[in-house]
C-alpha cells in the first residue's frame, strides 16, 4: 500500500491504494468519479482518457503511483458549475453521442486536440487525431462536427478571457 497524493479537479486528495492500482481505478473506485469509463482496458478505446498535467492520457494504462504529485482533470471537472464546457455543449448541440459510453473520453481527448491545434483544426485533422478514441454508435460524423464547433467556441471564449 502507498499513499498517493494528487490534485483531482482542483482539489488536493491523498488516497491509500495498493501499488498495482491503476489511475482509472483510483478515480472510479476510491474517489467515486465514475464519469471516466473503462471500455477495452487494453489502451485502445480511449473511454478512460483524463488530463494528467494537461496531457490527455489513457488512465487505464497508468499506475496511480505514476500520478503522485500530478494535477488530474476528469470529465467531472471541466464544467463551470451549471455551465457546460464548450466541448460538452457542442457535443449536446451536435448530437455527438448516442449511448454515451465513449463520450467522456472523447470530450477529454477533443479538448486536448483543440488546445494543441488551436484555430488550425479541419475535419481530416479531427478524424486523424481521434484515432485513439473508439465510438461504436455514431459513426463519428457528429462527433467530428461537435469538435469543430467547439474549436470555434473555445477560441471565442479564450479571446474573451
Amino acid at each position, binding site marked *: 500500500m502507498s499513499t498517493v497524493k494528487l490534485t483531482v479537479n482542483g482539489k488536493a486528495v491523498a488516497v491509500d491504494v495498493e501499488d*498495482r492500482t*491503476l489511475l482509472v481505478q483510483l478515480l472510479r473506485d476510491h474517489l467515486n468519479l465514475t464519469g471516466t469509463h473503462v471500455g477495452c*482496458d487494453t489502451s485502445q478505446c480511449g473511454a478512460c482518457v483524463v488530463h494528467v498535467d494537461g496531457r*490527455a492520457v489513457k488512465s487505464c*494504462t497508468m*499506475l496511480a503511483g*505514476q500520478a503522485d504529485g500530478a494535477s488530474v482533470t476528469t470529465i467531472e471537472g471541466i464544467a463551470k458549475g451549471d455551465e457546460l464546457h464548450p466541448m460538452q455543449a457542442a457535443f449536446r448541440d451536435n448530437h455527438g453521442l448516442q449511448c454515451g459510453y465513449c463520450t467522456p473520453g472523447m470530450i477529454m481527448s477533443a479538448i486536448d486536440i483543440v488546445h494543441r491545434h488551436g484555430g488550425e483544426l479541419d475535419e481530416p485533422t479531427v478524424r486523424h*487525431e481521434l*484515432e*485513439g478514441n473508439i465510438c461504436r454508435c455514431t459513426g463519428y460524423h457528429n462527433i467530428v462536427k461537435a469538435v469543430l464547433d467547439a474549436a470555434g467556441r473555445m477560441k471565442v471564449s479564450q479571446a474573451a478571457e
Partner: protein
Amino acid sequence: MYQTTYHRPSSVDEAVALFGKSSEAKFLAGGQTLLPVMKQRLAAPSDVIDLGKIKELQGVELSGDVLTIKAGTTYFDIMQNADVKKAIPAIAYLTSVLGDPAVRYRGTIGGSIANNDPAADYPAALLALGATVKTNKRSISAEDFFQGLFTTALEDGEIITAVSFPVPAKAGYEKMRHPASRFALTAVFVAQTKSGEIRVAATGASQSGVMRVGAIEAALKANWSPSALDNVSIPASGLLADIHGTAEYRANLVKVMAQRAVAAAG
C-alpha cells in the same frame, strides 16, 4: 494485475540500486507496453521501478552531426522537438504515426527499444541510421543491440540512458499501419549517410525482428530513386505471416514501403 511494489527513484543510480535489492524487478518507462502486459498477467514483476521522474533521462540535444535523444523522452516531446525536426525530420514523422495521441504522451523511445517488438517503429530508425544506444554501463551499436524478437543486448539491471543518431544526408520512413494496433504491418526506414553509405531497415517483416535489407541497399546505391527498386524481389522466407498478411504480402510491402520512403526522403 498481480501484486507488485512500486518505486519512483529520482536518479539512474538509485534505480539501479533498487533493482539490485529486488527479486524480480522491471523498469517502467512510459508503461504503454509493460502495464498492458502486467494487466494480462503475462508479466508479474515483484517490483516496478518507474524511470519516469528521472530528470537526467529527459531531453534532446543536437551537437554538430549527432542528435541525442535521452531515453525517457516521450514520443510527443520527440515529434514536437525543433532539433529533431531540423536534423532528422524522418524521426519526427515516424513518431507522429506511432500509436495514438494519448499513447504518444506517455510512451518513450527508451521503452520502445528495450521492448524490441518485431513490429515497433524505432528499431528500424536506429538500425538504418546506425545509431548508438547509450546505457548506464556502455555504448552499444544498433546492430549489436537488437537481437531478435523482444530480445536485446541489455543485461539485468542495465538502463538505457540515451540514443545517439548520426545526422544523415537523407532519410525517409514509410509504414503500412495496422489500423487497430497502429503497429507496423510492415515499415521501412531508408537512410543515406553523410559519407554516402546507404542503409535500409525493415520492421514488421522478419521473424527475427528488425532487419537490414541488403538487396534494396544495393539497388539504391546504384541509383537513389524509387524506380531503382522496380525489379528488386524480396524473398518471403523467414518473414512474418499472420491473419493480417502472408509472408509474400509482407515481402512485397518491404519493397513498396522502401520506394515510398525514398520518395519521402527526396
